[in-house]
């Protein structure tokens, strides 16, 4: 149990610190890399919850695909960091105050006399041959089929929105229309003019 606690607190600390770094570091590439670290350490925490499938998906999909694309975009854009930081100092005191109030209240509730976190029983550990992926697969298309379909619709809307907001048809581009080119006839291209011979 002690080793588990140590591992948990280690990865929890890494998650929190790297998440904080994402918003505080100056270089956007570093921020993206810190986000990768955040995902990695949260994947470890999921692993400790015996959610292997989610942990692996997080690494494969988010770290492997999404963040790489994100890094591409960050490297290609010329982001003016100084302008992004203009409001940072101005709103810092208010932000710190709010964070402290939130922290104080959470601390009071979670560690106070009536704290319920300890009183709740820890879930029983699954047997070694329990397959997380199998369990998910069995409910995903059966019990949660409606929710699953809606999640798909949300992705569809995201695609429609992205295309509707970014697609620009340029009217000044010149392009060929092969079917029109095929239908061309001699009279379209060649004009025979009868004129008086030069004297």
């Amino acid at each position: 149990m002690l080793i588990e606690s140590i591992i948990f607190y280690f990865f929890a600390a890494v998650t929190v610190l790297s998440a904080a770094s994402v918003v505080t570091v100056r270089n956007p590439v570093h921020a993206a890399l810190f986000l990768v670290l955040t995902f990695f350490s949260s994947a470890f925490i999921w692993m400790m919850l015996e959610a292997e499938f989610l942990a692996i998906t997080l690494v494969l999909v988010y770290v492997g695909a999404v963040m790489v694309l994100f890094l591409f975009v960050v490297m290609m854009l010329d982001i003016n960091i100084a302008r992004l930081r203009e409001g940072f100092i101005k709103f810092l005191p208010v932000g710190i105050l709010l964070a402290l109030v939130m922290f104080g209240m959470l601390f009071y509730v979670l560690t106070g006399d009536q704290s319920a976190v300890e009183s709740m029983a820890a879930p029983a550990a699954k047997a070694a041959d329990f397959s997380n992926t199998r369990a998910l697969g069995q409910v995903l298309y059966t019990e949660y089929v409606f929710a699953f379909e809606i999640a798909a619709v949300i992705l569809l809307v995201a695609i429609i929105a992205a295309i509707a907001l970014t697609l620009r048809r340029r009217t000044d581009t010149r392009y060929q229309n092969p079917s029109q080119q095929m239908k061309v006839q001699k009279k379209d291209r060649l004009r025979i003019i009868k004129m008086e011979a030069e004297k």
Partner: protein
Amino acid sequence: MTSFMQPNLLPALPEMVMLAMACLVLVVDLFLPQQKRGFTVLLSVLTLALVSWATLFTAPAAGAVITTFGGSFIVDSLAVTLKLAVYLVTFLVFVYSRDYLKDLDIYKGEYYVLGLFAVLGMMIMISAHSFLLLYLGLELLSLSLYAMIAFNRDSVSSSEAAMKYFVLGALASGLLLYGISIFYGISGTLDLTALSLVIKEQASTNPVMLAFALTFIVVGLSFKLGAVPFHMWLPDVYQGSPTSVTLFIGSAPKIAGFAMAIRLLIDGLAGLQIDWSMMLMMLAVASMALGNVVAIVQTNFKRMLAYSTISHVGFIMLGLLAATQTGLSSAMFYTLTYAITSSVAFGVLMLINCKGFNAQEIADLKGLNDTHPWYAALLAIALFSMAGVPPTVGFYAKLVVINAVIQVDMVWLGLVAVLLSVIGLYYYLRVVKVMYFDKPEDGQAITVKDALDVKILLSANSLSLILLGLFPSFLMAWCIAAFA
């Protein structure tokens, strides 16, 4: 997992029809040339009609409740009534928007497709009976709305509004999810019925943890509804969006938001009613006070209506916090009539052009009565209804809500509501004064996009406010039946 039973799919027929038709509209629209865009509008309206039929076809008998998908999807008379109201309001939005979109050169099929997907999100929210579906419906609705706000790509203020709405909406979703996850940790279930049983059990043994989770749920809910102090996004979004989208945001999603509040607070968390009534009371008083007072100093008509929305949300919360059958049905009556009323206000505003631009400022409406007395009258009726002047429906809605609060022995709250709506009267009447008694400035030519179908629909919409005010009983009967 051999015990899986094929769920009954029929209750979800409206959602399925909606999804299929939205995809159909999306594909058909691709092959239409710009001058035939009207066909997309027609098809979208037809979709709403078809879905209304499906909703009525699958509606349960009076008082009966159908659940499916393992109890996570529910169809009761509340769901049927609210869904029909959403279709009606969306129909109005689609028709009113047409000429405005043409004017702004954003008359595209995607506007209607995204609108239909937003309606699908609202339908799911209304019928959701588990945290999971509720959240997914909310995200579907929000995502469609973000895109619709940013639809006018060349407008800086629209992009800014979309960005603000997106960031704050994501924050609100995060808070809501945090609350949901704590409830899941306590109860081990996402289903609202199962959750309510667990809460009944633990209400006395585990009060701090439950209240802790509840706080996040209420905060997330208030963000989405736009109650003070979680209202910051609302004025900017209302002002920055194209008016057609402001009309949409200001009407139909309020109905879905009301449904979300009912599903969460009444269906799921009824055991914590003492706690959330207290929270809603503070939110309601703050919303009514700030909304009504700050609206006085606004010069932009859309921004003024945004603050007025905040105060109306306060009124809806008054009905919710009473949590009696009278309270809930009066809050529902208030929500439905407010959605209809704001359709008129934004609908008229969209038609008015001042100096060749779409009217936004209150000053743009100067002398509207001299040039277009009929439209001035329609807008005046909507404003009177928002202010709560009899015989419009706004008066009756305010009356039943205040009555519900007094019935649960909170007379002082009723008094506060009355006093604050008297303050609100000032800024609504100021707009009426500008329309009727101010003379237009030099060179301020007001033109109105005059289309016969829009005119007929707007007139019917506006006159229905008086009709509902005189004969509120049939709509009220529906609202009471929804909470029987």
